[in-house]
């Protein structure tokens, strides 16, 4: 069996073993889309290749320690032996070859899985703008005119193009079962593409600590059939409230999804979720540009800041 074959079979076996014991479907070990699946494969391939260098250590340590224990007078003792050309070549050569192989693979997959690239799909792509707030995620659907908090719905087998920023401190956006994470930062726009193969609900989260409500900053990424998605859009339009400058100012206060529900009088929705039927103006770009304008953003106008008071800071918007 060639090394190549081993490296193919071993990951499969490991995948079985590992996914057998996973508890929830919110990890890339149980992928819901092509990116996460490719990331899982990559993980197992690295595992397989590095084992070539690692297994000898695992095996040799006990063998050597036992064989050359002090009381074993039968073992050979060569106190001055300290070099061997063959060993030297192996010691440098084997890790080097492994790293070269892994580097080639790394270069290929890093480019292939670059989060900026749209994903191949027959359906037209969907654009979603993501705004990280203290301690919730706001999703804007610019082509549909709706918005949600802590609920990201999208049709299956569709490339979803996410533009991300935040209106507070730095955050990191991760839906593990679909794709990797990307930072979201105020005044900057990062990009990520996701695609789900089949309907399902996947957990999304912020992984960059941003204050006391951090553990609550989770949301559901819901992949649904095209028909279900249309129905969902209609429902958001029906049960949502308009997202105005005033309601955004309330929403942007440091609060978890549940607290924001109470603040905006939207109890009765799913836990932590808010729906907005309309969005006033180009909210995403006005958030983005607020930090690029050359005007100071004092704490009173800075969501997440100590002393954020949007009522008194109207003039700076």
């Amino acid at each position, binding site marked *: 069996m060639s090394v190549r074959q081993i490296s193919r079979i071993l990951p499969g076996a490991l995948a079985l073993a590992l996914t057998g014991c996973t508890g929830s479907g919110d990890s890339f070990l149980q992928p819901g889309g092509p990116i996460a699946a490719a990331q899982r494969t990559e993980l197992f391939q690295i595992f397989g290749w590095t084992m070539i260098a690692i297994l000898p250590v695992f095996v040799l340590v006990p063998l050597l320690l036992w064989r050359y224990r002090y009381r074993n007078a039968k073992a050979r003792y060569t106190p001055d032996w300290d070099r061997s050309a063959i060993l030297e070549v192996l010691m440098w050569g084997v890790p080097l070859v492994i790293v070269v192989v892994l580097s080639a693979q790394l270069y290929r997959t890093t480019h292939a899985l670059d989060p*900026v690239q749209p994903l191949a799909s027959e359906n037209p792509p969907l654009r979603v703008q993501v705004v990280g707030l203290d301690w919730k995620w706001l999703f804007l659907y610019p082509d549909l005119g709706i918005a949600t908090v802590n609920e990201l719905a999208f049709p299956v087998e569709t490339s979803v193009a996410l533009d991300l920023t935040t209106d507070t401190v730095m955050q990191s956006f991760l839906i593990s079962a679909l794709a990797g994470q990307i930072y979201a*930062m105020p005044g*900057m726009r*990062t990009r990520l593409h996701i695609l789900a193969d089949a309907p399902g609900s996947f957990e999304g989260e912020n992984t960059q600590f941003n204050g006391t409500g951090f553990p609550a900053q989770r949301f559901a990424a819901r992949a649904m059939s095209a028909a279900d998605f249309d129905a969902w859009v209609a429902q958001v339009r029906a049960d949502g409230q308009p997202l105005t400058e005033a309601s955004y100012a309330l929403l942007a206060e440091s609060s978890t999804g549940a607290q924001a529900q109470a603040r905006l009088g939207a109890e009765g929705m799913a836990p932590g979720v808010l729906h907005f039927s309309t969005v006033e103006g180009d909210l995403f770009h006005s958030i983005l540009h607020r930090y690029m304008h050359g005007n100071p953003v004092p704490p009173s106008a800075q969501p997440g800041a100590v002393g954020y008071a949007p009522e008194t800071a109207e003039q700076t918007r």
Partner: protein
Amino acid sequence: MSDPDHRSEARLYLAGFGLALTLTLVPFGLVHWGLMQGKALAITIAVLAVAQIVVHLRFFLHIDLSRQKREDLQLILFTVLLLGIMAFGTLWIMGNLATRM
């Protein structure tokens, strides 16, 4: 200033001063009178600055590559290497991020 060693060493300092002076006057003149523009000017300024740094190292700090003990030479070159990695890396990364966001 009677002894000859002293005089020749002082002359070296004066030579360094003259070179540094020239290498300062030229870029200031270029900018002041607007004799060159854009990229060409930027490159000229950079080249003249590096030349002047070499002049300072040679004539004022007496870094003379041929006569030093190797370990001291290594220190300076090594610093330049590491600083190069850090500064170039910073500009590369931050520049790339700026164009993408």
